[in-house]
């Protein structure tokens, strides 16, 4: 999928900036709204080229639905990660089995890979060290399977099916 038109990218940036403004000011006063709108227009004009590549198609209902579904899934994984780490910290024998493994991802989009790496960092016992092409290097606190396929299945797969839809990865 190629880049969207300039107008669509510009409008998308304005909408996102304005929504952030609404949340931060937390008021519906007409003065605040006008000021926020004008500022959104100016900042979006300066930044839309780096801010988004796909423009308004990011707001497609299917993508929003997947994003909304991704949030509780991700939060749950994160809470489990913390309980897991807490268990390892508090256990007297300190049951860790660390190592750096390599996983393969099917995502091609840079932003999707960024979110995948971030999600991996925040979930059970795994932390991204580096990304090279389609390979991610992960520090894993409890290595269950050091092979490429096994580690990919354990770490990356659960997130990929969400991220592929959210970030236009149609491969």
């Amino acid at each position, binding site marked *: 999928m190629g880049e969207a038109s300039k107008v669509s990218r510009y409008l998308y940036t304005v909408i996102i900036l304005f929504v952030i403004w609404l949340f931060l000011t937390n008021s519906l006063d007409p003065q605040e709204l006008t000021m926020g709108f004008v500022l959104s227009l100016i900042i979006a004009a300066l930044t839309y080229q780096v801010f988004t590549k796909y423009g308004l198609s990011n707001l497609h209902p299917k993508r929003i639905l997947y994003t909304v579904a991704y949030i509780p899934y991700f939060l749950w994984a994160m809470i489990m990660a913390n309980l897991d780490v807490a268990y390892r910290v508090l256990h007297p024998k300190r049951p860790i*089995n*660390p190592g*750096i493994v390599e996983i393969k991802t099917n995502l091609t989009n840079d932003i999707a890979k960024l979110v995948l790496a971030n999600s991996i960092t*925040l979930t059970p016992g795994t932390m991204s*060290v580096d990304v090279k092409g389609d390979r991610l290097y992960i520090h894993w606190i409890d290595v269950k399977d050091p092979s490429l396929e096994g580690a990919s299945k354990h770490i990356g797969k659960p997130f990929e099916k969400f991220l592929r839809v959210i970030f236009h990865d149609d491969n």
Partner: protein
Amino acid sequence: MTINEAIGAFLIFTGSLFYVLSSLGLIRMPDVYNRMQTATKSATLASLGVMIGVGIYSPCCFPKALVIALFLLLTNPISAHALIRAAYRSGIPLWEGSIVDKYKEALKEEGEQ
């Protein structure tokens, strides 16, 4: 005490508990990589809990707290990644109990090419 305040206080308390755990992890873990694991993960969830807790405790600030939590969630793992990568690149060895190091092989291959 209203129900809002009770839930908010509970979340703030849970957040603080995870802060304690993450600092405990800094002491107990054997090398810099495992320390980063406990420090980043627990601290992110703890900050998230505290921010949302504050938002619920005083509902006027809820949207602001939500945005702050979102930005924390976006930026925290990136700084963690930068730190752990810098640690590896500057030659800090893994703990001797580590069982596998694929990154070293990858870097070696890259050096040969």
